[in-house]
């Protein structure tokens, strides 16, 4: 990574080298702006990094798979040239508490047979369910690729954008529109009950409705999270996930190479203390060491709390905006426990088979299991029997671990940021033990395979990555915080009240996951404003 000369000015400075900061910087550099991406840590990637914590073992410390990344970014930033390689994860494995399992793979007919084993009723429901979800995605997905309209604006362009939205929605069939609204406002459990009767199938599907969010599958709002996670389109397959070569850190390194190839500079180990302003305009950033770097455009890739309340003076912000950001829900509720394993775990009902580990392993055997896990979090404690989304990435990418050994990424819920009567530094090991004991109950002998264990609490996510309260989406994916309300009414178009100061993190539309859309859409806004001379 290059070092900028201290006196040099830039056209744009991006605060934060997470995936959205990198995407934003790459687009700005591609458009010809002298662009600097400033990162606090010793590596870029934010929450999408891969670290060799034990020699030979590469951990996706935080984010661990790809699905929602916008295809236009892959092409427009020429990521293939820089090593973009998403690898198919061809199966999903969901153990049940009685030692049985649901194992879904790439063959539809085999999947039907597998579902019939649990419920003949559900055999033909899966196609209907998936088709209905795809129809909903056809409605919602175009909204991911555009800035939300400013429904509070009175400018001709605002009115035109609202008219576009209305026109898009008015073309939707009544049933599809109704399904869309039911999903956006309802619970995952209610939706799944309409199609299925099998506990394991509902548990497996509902798990996508709780990821990263403080809702249970029976909470209103989990439908929205379920829909969000169904909108990925890896290689054109809706809802399909891929594992990037070298983990999501491998992916952000690809982004960094692309950004640098367009001329962006990346400055590591340089925490930004504040955004500099003069007369209501952004003029640059001040680093923690006192260095000042100047640019007429400053872009925060950090979350809304840091963007509006920490990098600038809240006293200089409109009161309504400060209020909205102060009550913006972060309430991180996810954790990770990553393992280095001596060998693959054994699942008794499958004997010596190991093909079940080629995709996600979903420890969430029923709606009730998930909801009870949530119950603990409602009252300020981590789940006694947590939901766990495991991925043994070394099975699909042997470069992740030494031959015969494995790395296992475990995403764990629920782990509320605020613990009642304790704190995460106190509970860390007990929490790790809880997760490991849960895994042991499904995979007898699991503990004997563990060579190393890395526990990542919500507090660690906040401390290391900088995501407030450890929320992995830079703010909850709840309806009042989405679309033209993300992160605040009137401020969903990547601008801020300070001229030249923009936001491009996951706290803006469309939201979290390694999607890149906020970074790209913000760059379009910045370049548009520059062209109009209004930045």
């Amino acid at each position, binding site marked *: 990574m290059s070092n900028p000369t201290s006196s040099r000015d830039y056209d744009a400075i991006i605060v934060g080298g997470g995936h959205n900061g990198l995407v934003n910087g790459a687009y700005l550099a591609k458009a010809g702006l002298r662009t600097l991406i400033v990162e606090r840590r010793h590596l870029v990637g934010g929450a999408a990094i891969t670290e060799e914590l034990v020699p030979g073992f590469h951990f996706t410390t935080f984010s661990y798979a790809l699905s929602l990344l916008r*295809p236009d970014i892959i*092409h427009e930033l020429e990521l293939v040239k820089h090593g*973009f390689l998403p690898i198919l994860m061809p199966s999903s494995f969901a153990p049940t508490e009685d030692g049985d399992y649901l194992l879904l793979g790439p063959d539809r007919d085999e999947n039907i047979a597998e579902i019939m084993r649990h419920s003949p009723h559900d055999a033909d429901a899966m196609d209907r369910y998936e088709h209905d979800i795809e129809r909903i995605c056809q409605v919602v997905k175009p909204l991911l690729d555009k800035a939300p309209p400013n429904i509070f604006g009175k400018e001709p362009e605002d009115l035109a954008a609202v008219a576009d939205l209305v026109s898009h929605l008015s073309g939707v069939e009544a049933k599809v529109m109704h399904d869309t609204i039911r999903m956006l406002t309802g619970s995952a459990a209610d939706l799944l009950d309409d199609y299925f009767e099998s506990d394991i199938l509902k548990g497996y599907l509902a798990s996508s409705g709780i990821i990263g969010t403080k809702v249970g599958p029976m909470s209103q709002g989990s439908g929205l999270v379920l829909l969000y996670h169904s909108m990925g389109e890896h*290689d*054109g397959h809706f809802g399909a996930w891929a594992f990037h070569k070298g983990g999501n850190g491998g992916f952000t390194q690809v982004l960094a190479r692309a950004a640098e190839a367009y001329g962006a500079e990346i400055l590591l180990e340089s925490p930004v203390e504040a955004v500099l302003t003069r007369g209501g305009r952004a003029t640059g950033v001040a680093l923690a060491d006192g260095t000042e770097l100047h640019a007429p455009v400053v872009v925060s890739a950090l979350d809304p709390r840091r963007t509006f309340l920490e990098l600038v003076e809240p006293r200089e912000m409109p009161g309504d905006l400060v209020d909205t950001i102060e009550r913006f829900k972060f309430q991180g509720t996810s954790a990770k426990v990553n393992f280095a394993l001596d060998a693959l775990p054994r699942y008794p009902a499958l004997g010596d088979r190991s093909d079940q580990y080629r995709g996600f392993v979903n420890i969430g055997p029923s709606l009730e299991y998930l909801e009870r896990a949530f119950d603990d979090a409602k009252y300020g404690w981590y789940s006694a029997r947590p939901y766990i989304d495991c991925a043994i990435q070394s099975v699909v*990418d*042997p470069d992740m671990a030494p031959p015969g050994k494995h790395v296992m990424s475990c995403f764990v819920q629920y782990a509320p940021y605020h613990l009642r009567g304790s704190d995460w530094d106190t509970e860390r090991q007990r929490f790790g033990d809880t997760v490991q004991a849960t895994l042991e109950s499904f995979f007898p002998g699991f503990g004997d395979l563990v060579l190393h264990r890395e526990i990542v609490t919500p507090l660690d996510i906040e401390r290391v990555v900088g995501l407030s309260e450890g929320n992995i989406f830079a703010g909850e994916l709840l309806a009042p915080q989405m679309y033209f309300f993300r992160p605040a009414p009137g401020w969903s178009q990547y601008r801020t009240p300070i001229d030249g100061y923009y936001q491009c993190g996951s706290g803006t539309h469309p939201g979290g996951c390694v999607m890149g859309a906020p970074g790209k859409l913000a760059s379009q806004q910045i370049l548009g404003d520059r062209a109009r001379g209004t930045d």
Partner: protein
Amino acid sequence: MIRTTPFHPRLAPRNETGLWSHWAGYLSARRYDMSAKHEYFAVRNSAGYFDTSPLYKYWIRGRDAERFLAGVMTRDVRRCRPGTAQYTMWCDDRGFVLEDGVLFRLSDTEFFLTAAEPNLSYLRGLVGRLAVTVEDVSPAYALLAVQGPRSREILAGVAPEVSRLGFFGLTQAKVGGAPVTISRTGYTGDLGFEVLVGADDALPVLDAVVEAGHGHGLRPFGEDALLMCRIEAGLVLINVEFSSSRLAFTDHDRVTPKELGFGWMLKGIDDDDRPFVGRAAIRRELADKTSRWASVGLQLDWSEYDQLYTGAGLIPPKDETPLDYESMLYDDAGGRVGYATSLMYSPVLQRHIAMARLRPDLAVAGSRVNVELTVNHEYRTVPADVARLPLFNPERKAA
């Protein structure tokens, strides 16, 4: 009764799909796994092995073997040193391609040829008074392709010789106690090797390779994954990119080496005095510029492709299974300017790609053509950029 290859006893239980094709009279796995794409990723990301045994195999030996092959093969075999291999093709006297294959040169006087179709009587018919024998030894050998970024590391575990083996190099080695010939060749466009072994020794060799591949993501792959790889690699397939001139009914079904994209094989034919079958016709074609087609790669415009389907109310299909028909190519005025012989979605390139035949004046990298597709039962077109083959060409392939 269909035959099985020497590797079959080990491979049959690995085939979870029960899907086999018939290739040259042998059972050949279409895929072992429910997902051919998973096997494809083994080749592109770790390593896979493929049973190539059904290829026809010939020993061509004798004092005049080089002279014989120099007169039969379009590419100059005299430039193939002992201990190396050469991809080559042979033509008829009108300069149309009969077939392609790979020649191993074991010594000054010993060559080993693999080919997709039987060629014994054709080759013997050209021997004349030369001191050379052509022997069909197809069933006597098994051939195992080991392909992918980890292939060298895996094979080096059983045959350290491969670490030093250059692209299209050959080496003798011992694997699993059996003598083998290993070549740095393959049909995937990736780093890869092929292990030639006597049929009786096939199983211990396979066992040793599979053992060496433990922990490296090595898995068997079938024809479906192979065909995906070969299209990305721009490698031609008989009866898809070309037909044997000897069996074609019209010249529409015939191509010359230049038309098939192998102009590079013909470099220097004006300057050397090597008589070979088709030489005069090929020289005339080059001199008069009468080639009817050029072979190119196409990269379909991803955005237009997506919009075409999305606008039609569909989810854009991104299927890595190649279309089993030719797609026509048009210029902007709607005139037909060529046809795509192989079209698929490429997972590593993240877009639809094709191998195509295009009017030579349009075959310039960066020019655009329109590819015909069927959407909602109507013919529609998507623009595509013309590009040089191969479309996927990782450094590791030849490094």
